[in-house]
């Protein structure tokens, strides 16, 4: 074990902590990590992959629904928001979930402009999270390649 591995591990720890501190992730993400083990080593990656696929699909649905200017089906938009809220909540994507809560209210109020703005924010937010988590996975890979073990980060 060398200084290089130790340095990477520290970088990793700090990165994870910052993701929590900045509100990208919450304790549901911690729960997901705890479900990963030697029997299911890629569980978190698989679940995240499904989540981001969902994001693409749902954001697409909502964009199309909001495109029908004058005849926007807010129930339809709301149904998609509901789904996204559920999956973001289950994955620990705190910011995305928070946006969905607002989004839901905007749908109920049939606030067209509000919905359009919120959708844009959701789009940016999930993509940002995706990039951050990709960086996290890359760090993990680097650690393993350098012969180290990915540390368990204690959030508390």
């Amino acid at each position, binding site marked *: 074990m060398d200084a290089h591995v130790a340095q990477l591990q520290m970088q990793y720890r700090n990165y994870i902590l910052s993701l929590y501190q900045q509100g990208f992730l919450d304790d*549901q993400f911690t729960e997901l990590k*705890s479900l990963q083990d030697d029997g299911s080593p890629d569980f978190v990656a698989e*679940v995240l992959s499904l989540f981001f696929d969902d994001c693409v699909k749902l954001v697409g649905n909502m964009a199309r629904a909001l495109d029908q200017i004058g005849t926007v089906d807010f129930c339809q938009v709301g149904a998609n928001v509901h789904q996204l809220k*559920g*999956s973001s*909540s*289950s994955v620990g994507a705190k910011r995305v979930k928070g946006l969905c809560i607002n989004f839901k209210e905007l749908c109920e109020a049939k606030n067209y402009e509000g919905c359009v703005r919120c959708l844009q924010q959701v789009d940016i937010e999930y993509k940002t999270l995706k990039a951050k988590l990709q960086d996290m996975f890359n760090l993990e890979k680097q650690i393993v390649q350098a012969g180290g073990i990915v540390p368990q980060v204690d959030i*508390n």
Partner: protein
Amino acid sequence: MVMAAEPQFHVLAVDDSLFDRKLIERLLQKASCQVTTVDSGYKALEFLGLREGVEINDPDAVSTSPVIHQEVEVNLIITDYCMPGMTGYDLLKKVKESSAFKNIPVVIMSSENVPARISRCLEEGAEEFFLKPVRLADLNRLKPHMMKTKLKNQMLEEIEKPSKVESGTAAAVVEPEVKDLTEIGIKIVPLQSEVEPKQVHLQVVQQEDQTMSNNKRKSVEEGLSTDRSRPRFEGITTAV
């Protein structure tokens, strides 16, 4: 630690979302359960051997698709509430209405905290109502429920053995005369040595039974007995 003696529970998980199915499957595996996942209430009933309210081994039933004739032992059904077509509530009703499967504990999951919905499900016979995201701690609380059914089935099999009735009815056991576990506990003298440890379990289950009924409304009330306080009801206001 999973010991050889620890019983394997088989859970049928129902959810229309692939994402949620993956999650619940992993949670259940982590809780040392055998899992079968299906994406609809219809498929759940099919898996159990119940289609359109008709029990599969009914000779009068016309079957057009391949059917599972093996004995499917399911110790728990956990289902999402909001599903297209047949909701979790509908599935719950069908299960509770069936003579063969009404004793299988059913748990409902939902991402929404709607007290009226929760009450309705519990009144219809749901064992528990979990708010999503479901956690490992939630599932571990289900073990006593599953243990109860598993023991009941095993004990009933013991009763059935000497007088094996010809199978004209459902693959599962015939309408039991013994209604509750205490009766079974008293009537059955250990037939084999392996029954002995279970009697210890019986006592545990009975004690836990009392506490379980107090905890039924847990999803509606705040405050779970976990180590850290989780802002479960963040952003949601409920008037109970």
